[in-house]
């Protein structure tokens, strides 16, 4: 067979497949998104709440350094709190906008599908 004839021949042979049997053979052979984060999870992440227990030193005899770091966190609490509030406000507004757009796209897709 010549290469130019191969595709037509393959199509002819494939047309003889029984479609339901073929679907059965391929059932489950797909890859789902492996790093897709849902809207609910994003909303949970949107309000940033750092855990104060994670402020620590990993060095040997790091207790004084941990105490110093935690003291600095307390001293700057007003400023970091304001920063976190601004960030959370932005995140939530952005997510709301994304959710609205998702709904709108879905509505349009449904309308188009009839």
């Amino acid at each position, binding site marked *: *067979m*010549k*290469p130019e004839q*191969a*595709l037509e*021949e*393959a*199509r002819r*042979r*494939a047309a003889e*497949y029984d479609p339901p049997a*073929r679907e059965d*053979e*391929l059932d*489950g*052979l*797909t*890859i*789902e*998104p*492996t*790093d*897709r984060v849902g809207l609910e999870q994003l909303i949970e992440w949107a309000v940033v709440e750092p855990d104060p227990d994670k402020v620590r030193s990993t060095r040997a005899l790091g207790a004084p350094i941990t105490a110093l770091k935690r003291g600095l966190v307390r001293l700057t609490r007003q400023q970091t709190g304001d920063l976190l509030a601004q960030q959370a406000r932005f995140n939530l507004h952005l997510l709301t906008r994304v959710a609205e757009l998702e709904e709108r796209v879905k509505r349009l897709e449904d309308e188009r599908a009839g």
Partner: protein
Amino acid sequence: MNVWQVLSGAGPVDAVSRQALAVRERFEAWGWGGRDVAALIDPRAKGFEPLKGLRPAPADVLLIHYSAYAPRLRAVLDLPNRKLLLSHNVTPARWLWDHDPPIALQCELGRRQLSEYAARCDLAAGVSAYNAAELGSDVVLPPLLNLSWLRMRGQTPESQVRMRGQTPHSHLLFVGRLAPHKRQDEAIRAFALYRRRHAPEARLTLVGEPLNEGYLRALRELGDRAGGVEIESSLSQEQLAGRYARASVFLCLSEHEGFCVPLLEAFAAEVPVIARPSGGVPETAGDAALLVDDRDPAVIAELIALAAGDSELRAELIRRGHERVARYAPERAAVKLREALERLSSPARS
């Protein structure tokens, strides 16, 4: 003449780094000077210096290899030297959002940045006409490929058996990054149908570096469900040559390719090729591959059966494959590269 090669990143196995090293060998053979620098260097990569070592004389030419988002190279564009930008292609982000958002973001930025970089260089070229067209250019500088490391059919015990028609089963191969746009998932689906309908003992080997651990895991699970699939990474050149030597069909269903070097590797190893005509594939493969744009895995499964079993078809594809390899001989590619660089450095340039 001095030519400095500039890369966004240099690694031990990536195609662009290997390409830059091959180009440097040519420069040295021509008696040209210059050095090769990269913004990021894998400790295992040899032959590259940090970007801060880039100190070209005013008459030196810069050859910028572009293959990824490279904000650190922006400063290079401010240098007064003549510059040639060679695009090796950046994957469209849409394939990656569901599996690696940070990489998708880098690809998105990389593709946006590419046109800006091209506009700021004196000459923009692609490794294929497809890549060049993305830059609005018609300058094509194909890669310098040395395929002598591939053992031809008949030079290994496996291939000797295969040539005598004693191969107990078909062995399919695909070489390329284990990533969504390469569509190893579609290759597995078509292979599963082929295996059940034609060759229960058939094997599919997928060789490549994974996008990330999550995607590799998903691909392995898919391969396990289909059966007969093995996935391999970080192979040496000799090991890869062995995979080509035992392959009976090379199956490439990738949705996006700038050039697709593995096609030429398969041609050189005398393995018949089935490929999806995406991006630069039709240009690289010419008439030497069975190009199939059908989405129906049954069509691809039947095409595999034909490519694996029809000796007349196999012989003709192998013959045409030799012609493609000759067309992309490194000597020819080197002449084009030299002409482009000499034109760029010529005082009579426009």
